[in-house]
Each structure stands twice: as structure tokens, then as C-alpha cells.
């Protein structure tokens, strides 16, 4: 999602590395590109200015201009500052920082731990309540979700359903629901009542011995005094241990104003950013962190209740810098492919015996992980190239359709697919015969290539992939898994994805 930011930074570094000696004004000029990239990513103007000033000061202080590798050095500086701005510790061991998942939700005794959600309309509060409940349940902690939104039509029913869904998920504890549907009066007339509902929910939670009570409040504008007052009362009366501000990752420049207003009123102690599964450049993450100072605790990456992840400043910064979010990708891949499957596949690839069935399966699990473009964006160095690449998911659909129209025998031995068979498959899948021919041909090439590559060492493999990429490999991939490219190549992708999960284990 930060692909544009990466572009900006890469531009800077290319500029720096392309020149013999570099002056301060070069750095300054290059920083302009960073500035633009950040602004285009919706990072708030002041935040951008502050960030760029710090980076400039660092660059001058470190005498980047005299450095042999100014580009590298700048990446280091920008990365440090970015990690810092996102709330991470730039001095932390990167490996360690990645495996840490930050502080969880406090455990109070006597319970319950009270968590209050707040945010603008539609930011994702109710869904996130369910996600937190599911997460806690998994940890064996019991949860009660309280419907404190008496404003929006069917908000109580929504939370009740969500609580029920969370309770169905695995874990050693119960997810309960507390709501007073009869308190939902005429729309807009019930502002004060929410506080009472919360009070009674706390009582119920105590009696039931629930570990964590989560209050789902109504969405509201930070400029609505009456409703902000209501939140304030809930805060005063219930004294929550955590107050999470839920922010849509697609928010624009105004993110600072709303976050600031919520923070001033409630002292937000954590931020949850939602809808990170979109292609937003997500500058709001930087802005909100900057104005509230509260840590970004979790990110929402989908509508389902398991689509929540701890926030990692290092990862995010790495992604911004075009280093790719390989860790996320590996995690996603691990969810899709079992170790055993990966082993088998590896062996087949080494012998060049991949079948169309393997291919179809791979492609499907790959696509289940997310839109292809988003996945590619997580790969190192690929993010910045994506701009010119048109990944046609429809082409992927067509490729899938072609494979599906093949008989089991054909899938196992694609060489069989000639003349008549090609025609039949083309007709069955609604494609041209030549497209089928191409697919088969390219599949053959893929098998040959994976066989060759599996015999090489890591570095030789990379070199080979590069060579292949240079010489027509790009064209091949463009038709192969249906990745229609408009120019450059991103050949390593499939290979990387398949190999990585193994490496990590």
C-alpha cells in the first residue's frame, strides 16, 4: 500500500546514486521528491515538513554528501526517521522487532479490563470489536461486547451478530454480548442513555467474571459537541483501561484534526488503523501517530474477524522504502501452504515435473492471499516497478478457466495438448486457441527454468533469474500465470513466494 511512497524514495536514491559527487542542494532537491510522495500518500502537510526537516538535518550532520554511497546512507537515515515517526525503535534489532507483537490488552484484577472504542462514522469500530474479541478468545480470555451505539440503525443487532461470530471462532473462552435493544429510541434522541447502558454492562461483566469488556460506541464527528460529550461521560464514569481510536487508513489530510480532537477529549492510548487491505498509501498512519503520540496497536486487513494484525513500525517503514513487506507475505503464504505441500512442490520443481494441477492450486492459493498487485507490492524492489505494470486479474481468471477445461490427463502431461485438444480447451474456456498454445508453451519453459534454478546456490539463482528476466523471461511471465505486464518484469515473484516459507521454518 505504500508503493507510491517507495517510488518517491527510490527516485531520490536513484538520483543520488547516479551522480559522482553530491552536494547539499542535491540532497535538498531529492528531498522534494520525498515530500511530494508523502503528500500524495495523504500524510498531513505539517507532518511531512517535520519529517523532511529531520531527515535533512540528519543527512547534513552525517555528511551524506561526502559518503561513498550516499543513496544507501540516505535510505538508512530515512528509514530510521520513518520507524521513529511510526512509533518504532530504530535501534531495535530488526529481527527481534519483527517478531515482537507489542503489548497486548492489560489484564486487571479484579476484572474486567475495560476497553473503549471510538472514532468517526464507518471507520470500523464494530468490526474491530469483533476482531479484538476473537483475538482475546484465542488467548483464552473471556470477553463481553457492549453495544453502546444506540444511534445508528441496527448497530445493536450488528454487534450481537459479530459477537456471535467471534464466539464461534476457536479459543478457550466465551464471547458474550451485552445490549439493550429496547433502549434504542427514536433516532438521535438517545444521547445520554449510552452511559447508563455501559454502566449496566460493566455490572453484568463483573457478575459474569468476564476478563475484558469492550464498549462499541457510536461513530461521531469530532466537531459534534453533544456526542463528544457523551464519550467523555462514558470515559468519566467507566474509566476504561484502554481507549482505542479506530481510524480508516484511507483518511485524508483531516486525519490529524479528528485524531487530535478525540485525543484531547479522551486521551487515546492506542490507535487501530483499518482497511489496510486496500491500496491506500496510508499516510494517515503517519499523521495520526504524529498528533496523538499514541502507539498504533493493530491494523485491520479485511472484513473477517481474523483479519487483524499487530502493527509493526519496522515492517511498515521497510515497505515504504521499497524493501518490501516480505514478512507479511511469508506469513500469508504460511497460512495458505502447509509445510508438507511446500516440500512436495519443491521436489517437483527441482525435477521440472510441475503439473497444471499444481499450477492451478498455486495460483489459487496465491490469489486467495490478496489481489496480485498488492502481493507483488510486498516484494522487495517490486513495489516501485508496479506502477507501470498492469496486472490483469481477468487474465488470471482466463488462465484459470483454461486449466479447468483440461482433462486430468492433460493437466498431468501438458505436452499432450496439441491441435484438437487446444481447440477444445479454447472453446471450453472461452479463449482463443493461440492463447491455449501459449500457455502450454510457457508452462514448459517454466518447468525447464525451475529445474535449472533448483540446482543453483542462492546467489546464482538470483543471478539466473535476473538474466532470464533480461532475456525474454519478462514476456514469458506476462502470459504465464496471467500476469499481463506492460513492460518490466517481476519474474522472481512466484519463485520467491514458493521458496520463502521453507526458508523461514
Amino acid at each position: 500500500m505504500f508503493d507510491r511512497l517507495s517510488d518517491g524514495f527510490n527516485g531520490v536514491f536513484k538520483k543520488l546514486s547516479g551522480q559522482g559527487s553530491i552536494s547539499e542542494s542535491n540532497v535538498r532537491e531529492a528531498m522534494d521528491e520525498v515530500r511530494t510522495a508523502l503528500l500524495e500518500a495523504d500524510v498531513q502537510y505539517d507532518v511531512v515538513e517535520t519529517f523532511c526537516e529531520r531527515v535533512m538535518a540528519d543527512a547534513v550532520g552525517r555528511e551524506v554528501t561526502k559518503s561513498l554511497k550516499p543513496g544507501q546512507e540516505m535510505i538508512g537515515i530515512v528509514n530510521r526517521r520513518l520507524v521513529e515517526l511510526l512509533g518504532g525503535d530504530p535501534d531495535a534489532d530488526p529481527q527481534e522487532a519483527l517478531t515482537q507483537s507489542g503489548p497486548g490488552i492489560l489484564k486487571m484484577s479484579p476484572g474486567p479490563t475495560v476497553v473503549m472504542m471510538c472514532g468517526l462514522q464507518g471507520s470500523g469500530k464494530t468490526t474491530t470489536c469483533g476482531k479484538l474479541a476473537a483475538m482475546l478468545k484465542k488467548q483464552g480470555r473471556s470477553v463481553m461486547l457492549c453495544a453502546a451505539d444506540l444511534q445508528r440503525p441496527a448497530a445493536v443487532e450488528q454487534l450481537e451478530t459479530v459477537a456471535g461470530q467471534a464466539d464461534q471462532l476457536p479459543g478457550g473462552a466465551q464471547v458474550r454480548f451485552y445490549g439493550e435493544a429496547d433502549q434504542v429510541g427514536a433516532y438521535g434522541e438517545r444521547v445520554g442513555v449510552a452511559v447508563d447502558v455501559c454502566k449496566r454492562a460493566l455490572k453484568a461483566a463483573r457478575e459474569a467474571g468476564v476478563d475484558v469488556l469492550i464498549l462499541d460506541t457510536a461513530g461521531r464527528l469530532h466537531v459534534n459537541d453533544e456526542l463528544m460529550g457523551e464519550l467523555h461521560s462514558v470515559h468519566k464514569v467507566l474509566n476504561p483501561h484502554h481507549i482505542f481510536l479506530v481510524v480508516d487508513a484511507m483518511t485524508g489530510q483531516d486525519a490529524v484534526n479528528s485524531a487530535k480532537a478525540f485525543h484531547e477529549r479522551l486521551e487515546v492510548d492506542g490507535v487501530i488503523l483499518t482497511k489496510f487491505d486496500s491500496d491506500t498509501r496510508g499516510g494517515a498512519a503517519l499523521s495520526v501517530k504524529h498528533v496523538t503520540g499514541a502507539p498504533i496497536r493493530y491494523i485491520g486487513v479485511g472484513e473477517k474477524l481474523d483479519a487483524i494484525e499487530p502493527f509493526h513500525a519496522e515492517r511498515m517503514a521497510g515497505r515504504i522504502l521499497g524493501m518490501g513487506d516480505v514478512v507479511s507475505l511469508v506469513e500469508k503464504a504460511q497460512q495458505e501452504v502447509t509445510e508438507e505441500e511446500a516440500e512436495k512442490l519443491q521436489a517437483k520443481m527441482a525435477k521440472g515435473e510441475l503439473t497444471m494441477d499444481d499450477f492451478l492450486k498455486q495460483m489459487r492459493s496465491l490469489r486467495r492471499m490478496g489481489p496480485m498487485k498488492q502481493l507483488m507490492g510486498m516484494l522487495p524492489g517490486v513495489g516501485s516497478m508496479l506502477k507501470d505494470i498492469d496486472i490483469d486479474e481477468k487474465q488470471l481468471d482466463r488462465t484459470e478457466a483454461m486449466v479447468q477445461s483440461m482433462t486430468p490427463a492433460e493437466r498431468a502431461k501438458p505436452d499432450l495438448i496439441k491441435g484438437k485438444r487446444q481447440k477444445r480447451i479454447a472453446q471450453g474456456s472461452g479463449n482463443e486457441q493461440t492463447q491455449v498454445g501459449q500457455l502450454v508453451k510457457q508452462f514448459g519453459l517454466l518447468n525447464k527454468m525451475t529445474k535449472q534454478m533448483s540446482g543453483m546456490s542462492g546467489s546464482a539463482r538470483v543471478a539466473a533469474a535476473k538474466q532470464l528476466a533480461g532475456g525474454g523471461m519478462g514476456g514469458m511471465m506476462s502470459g504465464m500465470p496471467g500476469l499481463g505486464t506492460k513492460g518490466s518484469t517481476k519474474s522472481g515473484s512466484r519463485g520467491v513466494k514458493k521458496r520463502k516459507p521453507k526458508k523461514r521454518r
Partner: protein
Amino acid sequence: MALFKSALGKLKKGLARTRETLGGGLRSLLTGKRLDEQLLKDLERRLIESDVGVAGARELVESVRTDYKAGNIETGDQVLDHLKRQLKSWWPEQDRSLTFATSGPTVILVTGINGVGKTTSIAKLCKALRDEGRTVLLGACDTFRAGAVRQLEIWGERLGIDVVKGQQGGDPASVAFDACDAAVARQVDVLILDTAGRLHTQQGLMGQLEKIRRVIDKRIPGGPHEVLLVLDATSGQNALRQAEEFKASAGVSGIVLAKLDGTARGGIVVAIRSATDIPVKFVGVGETPDDLEPFDPEAFVEAMLAE
């Protein structure tokens, strides 16, 4: 067929915040000042802060700079006039009213990403259409989100409008199918279909919209007559990507910009304008069914640059 004669007063009220921050800010930034490079820089900043976008802001500032260099503009007040003229010229004369079927029910399909305000905007449209004397039927094609059907039903109950619904988790296209048949059988004027929020990057779900469209066209040839994309006015530049993608897969014919009362700076309207020719047809300025206004660029620009 102008639906909703422009209720300017209301729009101004809805834009109070916009005027305060963007308009007021621009005005206080510019009035009584002599134009120089610093002021141009401040102007650019102000525009970016209002979500106009980097490109849009720079284009506007460049146009001022050109006039400045040519000696045509010397003061901040002249800049205000220039901006007003410039911005207004960005919006062509365009029909921004709803498109209706020539005969039989008009089908309006409402789409957008998660949480932008689709369902609420539908309630607002219902009210406006009903107040015009048209009969309306609703189809609850959001079978995915918890409580979504109930939410629409509650709006229906409040407004006295029936809702055709299906199974929770069922096929939205089949709800569309049933709703179309019901609309024909009952001879209603307008059928509005609510859909589940989906990210424009989710190809599968975008395909589902195409399917819904096909089903509508089969039952009510020529439909949907209007495909409205709801965008959130507080969103940043990603709104442009949404417009692009939804236009490509769902054939969007108009935009509803919700939550304009929330955003402090309506600049995203300008950004949308420079990126797409899909007309913004309505703006949402609150959470009640009355809080919908037709989009009027002249009035909007005036509000943006007002006192």
C-alpha cells in the same frame, strides 16, 4: 428532469466547516496581501491541506503564478477571484440529476467501499424521491455485513418503504433478481439496491457487481439506469482510485459524496473533478434522511471561498 431543486441554504450550512477552514483560511490568507512567492507557497499548502491533492494544488497555483508573472495579478484578493473563476471553469455544464427509465421502474444501484455511507445515502434518496411523489422499493443486496439488512429495513420502516430481502450470506444477485421482479409487479417508480461495501481492489467482489448488473438488465431491460458510487468526503486521494476502479467494473454514472459535514475541507471534490468526468450528483451533509443535497459546483466553489 431535475430532481431536487438546489437548496442552496442547506448546502451552505453543510459547508460551514469547509468555509471555516478552507474558505476562511484562504480568504484570511489572501485578503489584503500583496502577492509574492511566499504567498504562492502558502496557497499551495492550504490547498493540499484541503485534500485537493498535490497535482491539483500545483496546477491551481501554477495558473495563478502565470498570471502573476504576466503582471495580471498583484494582490491576494485578485487571487481569490482568479481561483473562483478557475475552479468554476473546471466543471462543465452537465446534467447532474438522476437518470430515469423512460417506462417501467428505474433501477438505481448503489455501490462503494466499506463504511462510506451507502445505506444512509439510500435512506436520504428514498426520502427525496418519496417527497417528489415517487414510489420507491428497496432491495437489500448487502447480504454480507452483520446487521446490514436490518439497518436498511429500519430505514424502510421509518420512511414507509418496503424492502425486498434474501438470506443472510446469500447471493446478492438473487436478491437483485427478486427485487426487480417485485418492482415490476408492484409498478413502483424507483427501485434502489443497496450493496455490501467492497474494496475496489477485490476483483472477485467487483465481478459480483457485474453479475448484479447483468441480472438487473435481464429482468428490467436497460437497467440499472443509474449506478451511484458513494465516496467518503473525509477520505484522501484513494477516493480517486475508487472512482476509477468502480467506473471500470460497475459503470458508475454518478457520485454521492457523503460525510461532507465531517470533512473540514471539501477539496477532495476538486481532486475528483480533475481525475474523472463522473459527475458528483449529491452530497451528504449529516446522518438524517434530510441531509442530502444536490451538488452545485457554483455554490460549492462560492462556499469554499466564502467569508
